[in-house]
């Protein structure tokens, strides 16, 4: 494989389940060393794409090449070089932390002494060294997720696949996971992750694609996407629910690139939020609350799909 060929290459990739098309002809390339994200709401086709990359779900149509190999024919060789963190924990909760890594290392055919040495290093990395001989069952959700990350690294993978790595975790546990993933990225590990959290995508991804209804709506770096599909600043306004619609109509007079009327807020896409707020007040419109913030991937998603990520 030459240095420039992508680690993963997909062209017109399709996954169907009966008459339902989960992934509807997507193209993407993953380069070595980058952190690549699939951002989209639940049901966008992210997990189906991840399962195809993980060689546990044969594509229905299109091309997919992973590490220069064919996922249907060469699944064993490819999976030997992947590290998978699935959406649902698949740890054996009745075994100890250490035994979970031992079992998994054996799945990859690693000798016992190699597994032992890596286990010590990986548990230190995910801050679970002191729990090595405890059962998995009583560990917190965040600890289990960190253990799953350690487990996925036992074979020193070329590509790590993380399907919604922090879904269901509390904010503190999420930050602990992000911190570990960021360190992996610094060490040159190639990451592929799916998420429906825009902050996760912004923090971790060098490059991402926005998925909706099985298709890729747009792709690029987080900054590029925000520049292309949003504005530097966003003015969020809240009104009394009774006046909401009426106020929104009056705001048409404010010079903004775009105006989004959501169920609970009005968003004004502008260069300068503070001067836009002055213009709003000049029209005689007084919001209950106002907030000036920078444009985010949430705005990109709203622009591309007309919906919010959480919906």
């Amino acid at each position, binding site marked *: 494989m030459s240095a420039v060929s992508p680690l993963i290459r997909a062209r017109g990739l399709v996954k169907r389940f009966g008459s339902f098309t989960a992934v509807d002809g997507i193209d993407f390339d993953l380069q*070595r060393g980058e952190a690549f994200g699939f951002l989209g709401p639940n049901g966008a086709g992210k997990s189906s794409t991840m399962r195809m990359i993980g060689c546990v779900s044969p594509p229905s149509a299109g091309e997919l090449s992973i590490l220069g190999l064919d996922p249907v024919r060469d*699944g*064993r060789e490819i999976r*030997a070089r992947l590290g998978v963190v699935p959406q649902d924990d698949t740890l054996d909760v009745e075994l100890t932390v250490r035994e979970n890594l031992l079992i998994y290392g*054996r799945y*990859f055919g690693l000798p016992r002494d190699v597994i032992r040495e890596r286990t010590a290093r990986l548990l230190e990395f995910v801050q679970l060294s002191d729990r090595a001989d405890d059962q998995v069952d009583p560990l917190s959700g965040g600890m289990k997720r960190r253990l799953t990350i350690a487990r996925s690294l036992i074979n020193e993978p070329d590509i790590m696949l993380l399907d919604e790595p922090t879904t269901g975790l509390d904010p503190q546990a999420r930050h602990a996971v992000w911190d570990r993933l960021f360190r992996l990225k610094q060490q040159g590990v190639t990451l592929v992750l799916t998420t429906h959290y825009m902050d996760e995508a912004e923090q971790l991804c060098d490059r991402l694609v926005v998925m909706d209804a099985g298709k890729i709506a747009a792709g690029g770096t987080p900054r590029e996407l925000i520049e292309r599909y949003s504005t530097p600043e966003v003015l969020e306004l809240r009104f009394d629910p009774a006046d909401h619609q009426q106020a929104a109509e009056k705001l048409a007079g404010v010079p903004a690139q775009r105006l989004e009327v959501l169920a609970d807020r009005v968003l004004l896409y502008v260069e300068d939020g503070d001067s836009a707020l002055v213009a709003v007040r000049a029209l005689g419109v007084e919001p209950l609350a106002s907030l000036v913030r920078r444009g985010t991937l949430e705005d990109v998603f709203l622009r591309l799909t007309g919906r919010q990520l959480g919906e």
Partner: protein
Amino acid sequence: MADVMTRVPGTAPRGPAPSGWSLSARQLRFWLTNYRRTWRGSIYSSVLNPVLFLGSIGLGLGTLVNRHGAAQLGGVSYLAFLAPGLLAAAAMETAVGESTYPVYGSVKWNKVYQAAVASPLRPVDIFHGHVLFVTLRLAMNCSIFLAVAAAFGAVRSAWMIAAVPVAVLTGLAFAAPIEAWAVTRTRDTSFTMIFRFFMIPLFLFSGTFFPITQLPAWLRPVAYLTPLWHGVSLCRALNLGTADLGQVVIDVGYLAVVAAAGLLAGNRCYRRRLYV
């Protein structure tokens, strides 16, 4: 903080893909590690089960039977008649127990199979790894059974040693097809049905406790179709020294065909369940 990787990512040495045997052995080792938690308890029941049955029915009920029916049993004690039949039936019980909830739970509860399928293991390796484990469990239980039967004085022929592999094969003729079916289940209610309406009737009416010539004539062909009857009658013939080559070929052949059909079905069912 030490680096997590000992090498530059993407420079892994690439060997040929490991063989199916080596991959199945990796899954077998998972089951063995898992079994370390429960092996003591399982040994107790492996010993206790034949002790209870051979003691109560073999000796207790056997005393009554011997007084009236020795001729019907071919002139041997009821204990010597019963023990080889029970050996085959116990193998069936072990096989059904190991191939229902453990398989279902590996997909639905602790997701052991989903974890394994993300590694180099294929569904077929995961299946074969478990079948290998069940084979070992069968060999263990059947050997213990033979030792208990010998202690009861129920062994009449050295050929009874050959009844152990026959009983293991009998178990596999149940384990392979039941695993193939169990992996496709989405709810576990089907398993109590298997125990109640499949395993217990077979246990009672496949010649384990009495010769199937005692069954009504219309029911006998049903008994001939069950793998258990073949296992029971061959184990018994080995203990009583009445086995001939024809019977061995027919019984072993029948059990092997059922087990092989179960393996083929399992290869397919595991793939369809784990590669979606």
